[in-house]
């Protein structure tokens, strides 16, 4: 199979900050790559270089066999881009937005209009087609934005944090749309902060941090690298952490982590729900009061803690990805807890 995207040794600096420090990656034609990393890791910078918006300082990148600098126009004709926030014209209606983009892809008028109608239908926006996009909800704008990037039936689609800021229902709907596109054979490069999202949609993942690739592989390979499951306790009293750690340590396959302030104790374990039962048995009669316990699969935080030694949220220091004002309030959501007792 051929590669739809090839990136070699990409370097990008913004003033004194190095946003990308030699990134290599490839995306097989027809597959979905999840580009994972915290705010400021360089995900958006990679997307911007691949979509011809930004010039790299070193390295090279090809999309559908075309150099993104030398053949920029040909690249633009074969890609679709949905940026971090919905780039729709709020004064135009949904239909007008899509028609305009179609015309700018140089579709004939009739074709642009029929394609616009088709995509509005497909993204459940037909009812809102003649309303200015100003009146759309966040989820609707995002859908309109993705629809716009599909006007030209792109061979490669770039989705930069397509679900950031969406409520859970819109997020699920968005996942379905993306999965459908992938099934249709579109090559997709998807950036996300959510391991769960990448897990669901991506065939392969690349994790970047501070402009460097720190891990790559399938979701399972990454999780294996991170070390499987974790048992997480929230205790009623911080003083109990010592006693609980003492009793539970034999079950852990690696060093337990604890945090006094949140009264949390976290143990890397193997063995599924039996371990959970065993752990609870060991705490019986100890006087340790457990508020909450759960068996968790690793999430992006764990990937980061394991691979870099720092948490995902603290990682961002490059300012190129912190534009979205509501970003901090949307926050991260933990991955679903497998076999959780919560």
């Amino acid at each position, binding site marked *: 199979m051929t590669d739809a995207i090839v990136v070699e040794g990409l370097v990008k600096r913004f003033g004194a900050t190095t946003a990308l420090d030699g990134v290599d990656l490839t995306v097989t034609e027809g597959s979905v790559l999840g580009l994972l990393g915290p705010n400021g890791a360089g995900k958006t910078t990679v997307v911007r270089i691949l979509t011809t918006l930004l010039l790299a300082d070193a390295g090279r990148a090809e999309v559908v066999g075309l150099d993104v600098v030398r053949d920029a*126009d040909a690249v633009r*004709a074969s890609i679709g881009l949905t*940026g971090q926030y919905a780039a729709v014209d709020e*004064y*135009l209606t949904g239909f007008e937005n899509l028609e*305009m983009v179609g015309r700018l892809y140089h579709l004939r008028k009739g074709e642009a209009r029929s394609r616009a109608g088709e995509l509005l239908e497909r993204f459940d926006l037909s009812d809102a087609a003649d309303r*200015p996009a100003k009146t759309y909800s966040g989820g609707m704008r995002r859908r309109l934005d993705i629809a716009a990037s599909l006007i030209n039936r792109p061979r490669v689609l770039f989705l930069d944090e397509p679900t950031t800021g969406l409520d859970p229902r819109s997020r699920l709907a968005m996942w379905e749309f993306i999965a459908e596109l992938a099934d249709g054979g579109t090559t997709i490069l998807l950036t996300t902060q959510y391991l769960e999202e990448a897990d669901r949609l991506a065939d392969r993942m690349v994790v970047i941090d501070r402009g460097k690739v720190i891990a790559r592989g399938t979701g399972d390979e990454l999780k294996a690298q991170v070390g499987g499951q974790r048992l997480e306790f929230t205790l009623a009293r911080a003083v109990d952490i010592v006693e609980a750690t003492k009793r539970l340590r034999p079950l852990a396959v690696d060093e337990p982590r604890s945090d006094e302030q949140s009264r949390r104790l976290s143990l890397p374990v193997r063995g599924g729900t039996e371990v959970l039962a065993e752990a609870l048995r060991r705490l019986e009669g100890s006087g340790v009061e457990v508020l909450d316990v759960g068996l968790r699969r690793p999430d992006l935080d764990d990937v980061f803690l394991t691979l870099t030694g720092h948490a995902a949220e603290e990682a961002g220091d490059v300012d190129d990805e912190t*534009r979205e004002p509501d970003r901090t309030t949307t926050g991260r959501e933990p991955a679903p807890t497998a076999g959780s007792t919560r």
Partner: protein
Amino acid sequence: MTTLAMAVSDSLTITRRNLIKVKRVPDLIVFATLSPIMFVLLFRYVFGSAIPVPGGLSYAEFLLPGIFAQTVIFGSTITGASLAEDLQKGLIDRFRSLPMARSAVLVGRTVADLGLNVLTIAVMMITGLLVGWRIHTSVGEAILGVLLLLVFAYAMSWVMALVGLLVRTPEVVNNASFIVIFPITFIANTFVPIDNFPPVLKTFAEWNPVSAVVQGARELFGNVVPGTPPPESWALQNPVLYVFIWVVGFLVIFVPLSVRTYRRTASR
């Protein structure tokens, strides 16, 4: 499609998009025309009684071409503010990721703003006729007068396009251009005759292209008294030619510079 046909078609698409906004946000037009009407009325009736005009011309006749010039020049700031807004909202990113002509976003913007200026001038001319301003020349000359104003404003739009792409915040574009445009439209023959200006200001006013735009418009509308002594500077003796030189200069410098900046710009 040839490159040129593509550029024209893309520019038209963008112009249409910008004009739809004008249609959807009528406040835009209301305020774009209300403030010049206010200026016409204030200057005509408040200053009009106190400002003597050479040759016994009525102040309304003297004033209106000046107000026209100031207003269309202020109209050009919309170009900068709108581009800054498009940058902020990520629309420029979308456009830059499309296989469209690199000049189209800027051409479409400046052309739409030119359209807005045509409308503004029409409203002001009607207001002017109501308060005593008259055209004393042929239709052809009057049309040339309007064109002179519009062409200069269009060239200013390209200056503002660059400002908008560099400054990136619509409010800042507005404030910054106010600081520049207010003085250049006041240190000129816009509202008062320049003969009694202090020497330095007088020289500035004589060579200020805004003065030449106003002088040219006055001559083309016939708002000068025949037989008044000719202005002292070459610029004001040959206002249309002088304005033309500035327009060509602005376009030659700022069209390529703005397009180049657009190609490299990226929202942050």
